[in-house]
C-alpha cells in the first residue's frame, strides 16, 4: 500500500537534510555543503591553499597550520582544513598577512629538524621542499636549531629518520584509519614530540606492524623511506589511498 501523498514527499526527503551555504573565497562566490571544509571548497574551485599535513583520504588533523586563511571580521586566522564555512562568510587566502604567517610556519618547520635537501633520498620528490618553491621561500630568517635526532633502521624493509620528520602525523592516521594496525603514535609534547612505533620500541620489534608500507608512502618527506634508496631515489606512491577508499565505499553500499 502506498503511503498518502503528504507522507510520501516527507519520506523522500532526507531525514537530516544537508544545508547548503554560499560564501566567498577571494571575492569569488562559492557554494558548499555545510559539512565541507573551506579547504575542500577552495580546491573544488581551483583556489590554491598550501597544505602539508592534509592528505585526501585521511582524517583532518590541523597540525601544520600552512592552510591558514583570513576570515573577514574574525581577528584570528583559521586553518582551512578544519574550518567549516558559514553563510556569507568572506574568506581571504592570499592576503599579505596570511602569506607572511605561512612562510614563518614553513621556516620554523625547517629550523626544527635537520632538512638537508641536497643529500636527501627524497630530494625532488618532497612535499616540504615543494612548499618552499610554492611559497617562494628563499631563505630562513630564524636560527637553525640543529637538534640531535636518531634513525631507526631496525625494520627489515623500511627506516625512519627523525631528522626529516615534520610531525604531520600522516603515518599515525593512515596506520590507524586505513590499515587498522595503529602501530604509529606520538610521544612527548611540543618541540620534543616524536612519532613512535608501539610503545616506543625499535620498529623492527613491533608486534602490531603489518609491514604494509602505507606510512612510508604517505609521508611527505624522507622521514619514512624504503631501505636501499640513494639521493633523490625515493618516490612516494600514494595511488592506493583513493583506490582503497573507493573500493571500501562500494562494498558498503
Amino acid at each position, binding site marked *: 500500500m502506498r503511503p498518502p501523498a503528504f507522507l510520501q514527499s516527507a519520506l523522500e526527503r532526507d531525514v537530516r537534510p544537508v544545508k547548503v551555504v554560499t560564501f566567498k573565497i577571494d571575492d569569488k562566490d562559492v557554494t558548499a555543503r555545510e559539512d565541507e571544509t573551506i579547504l575542500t571548497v577552495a580546491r573544488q574551485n581551483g583556489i590554491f591553499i598550501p597544505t602539508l599535513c592534509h592528505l585526501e583520504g585521511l582524517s583532518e588533523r590541523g597540525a601544520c597550520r600552512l592552510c591558514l586563511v583570513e576570515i573577514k571580521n574574525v581577528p584570528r586566522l583559521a586553518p582551512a582544513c578544519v574550518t567549516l564555512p558559514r553563510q556569507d562568510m568572506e574568506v581571504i587566502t592570499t592576503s599579505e598577512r596570511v602569506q607572511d604567517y605561512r612562510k614563518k610556519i614553513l621556516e620554523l618547520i625547517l629550523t626544527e629538524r635537520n*632538512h*638537508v635537501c641536497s643529500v636527501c633520498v627524497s630530494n625532488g620528490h618532497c612535499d616540504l621542499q615543494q612548499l618552499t618553491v610554492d611559497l617562494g621561500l628563499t631563505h630562513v630568517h630564524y636560527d637553525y636549531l640543529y637538534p640531535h635526532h636518531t634513525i631507526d633502521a631496525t625494520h627489515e624493509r623500511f627506516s625512519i629518520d627523525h631528522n626529516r620528520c615534520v610531525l604531520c602525523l600522516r603515518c599515525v592516521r593512515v596506520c590507524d584509519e586505513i590499515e587498522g594496525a595503529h602501530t604509529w603514535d606520538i610521544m612527548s609534547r611540543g618541540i620534543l614530540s616524536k612519532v613512535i612505533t608501539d610503545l616506543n620500541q625499535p620498529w623492527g620489534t613491533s608486534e602490531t606492524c603489518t609491514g604494509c608500507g602505507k606510512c612510508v608512502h604517505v609521508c611527505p618527506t624522507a622521514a619514512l623511506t624504503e631501505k636501499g634508496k640513494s639521493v633523490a631515489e625515493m618516490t612516494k606512491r600514494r595511488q592506493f589511498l583513493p583506490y582503497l577508499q573507493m573500493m571500501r565505499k562500494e562494498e558498503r553500499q
Partner: protein
Amino acid sequence: MSKTRVATTWLDGCSGCHMSFLDIDERIVELASMIELVYSPIVDTKEFPENVDVTLVEGAISSDADIEEIINIRKNTKVLISFGDCAVSANVPAMRNRFERREVIDRAYIENANNNNHAPYQNIPGLMKSARPVHEFVQVDLFLQGCPPPSEAIYGVLSQLLAGEYPDLKGKTRFGA
C-alpha cells in the same frame, strides 16, 4: 661604460657552485666581455678589493677567518649574493653541528688519517662551534638556492643584474636543486 666589477669566493663549501657557474658554457665568453672578475679563487688577487659591484659567496661560515672575510666582503660589495645552499642554509657543512668540535676534528685528523695522526694546532683558523648561514653575520641581498644552483639560474641572475633588473628566481631553483 666601465665594466661591472664581480667577485666570487668560497668559504665552507665544496666549490661545486663555482663548477656550476662554469657550466654556463660558451655564454661565459659573452659574460666575460661585460664583467671584470676582480677577486675569485680562480684568479690571482690575494686581497679582496674595494668597490665591488656583485659578490657571489659560496659556502657556510665555519671559522674565524670566514667571519673576517665575510665582514670585509660586505664592506666592499654593493650586491652580496648567497651562492648555493651552504651559504643560504649551511647545508652539508652544518651536518657536523650536532657533534662537539673536538669530535669533528678528531674524526677528520686522527680517526680517518692513515699516517701523521694529529690535529693541526697552528696557522689554521679556529673552527667555529657550528657552521652557520651567511645571512646570520651580514646582510645578504639575494639568495641563490641549490646544491649547486643550476647554471641557468646563475646565468639568469647575473644577466638580469647586468641589465639593471632585479633578478626573478621564481621556479628557477630551490633547496637541494
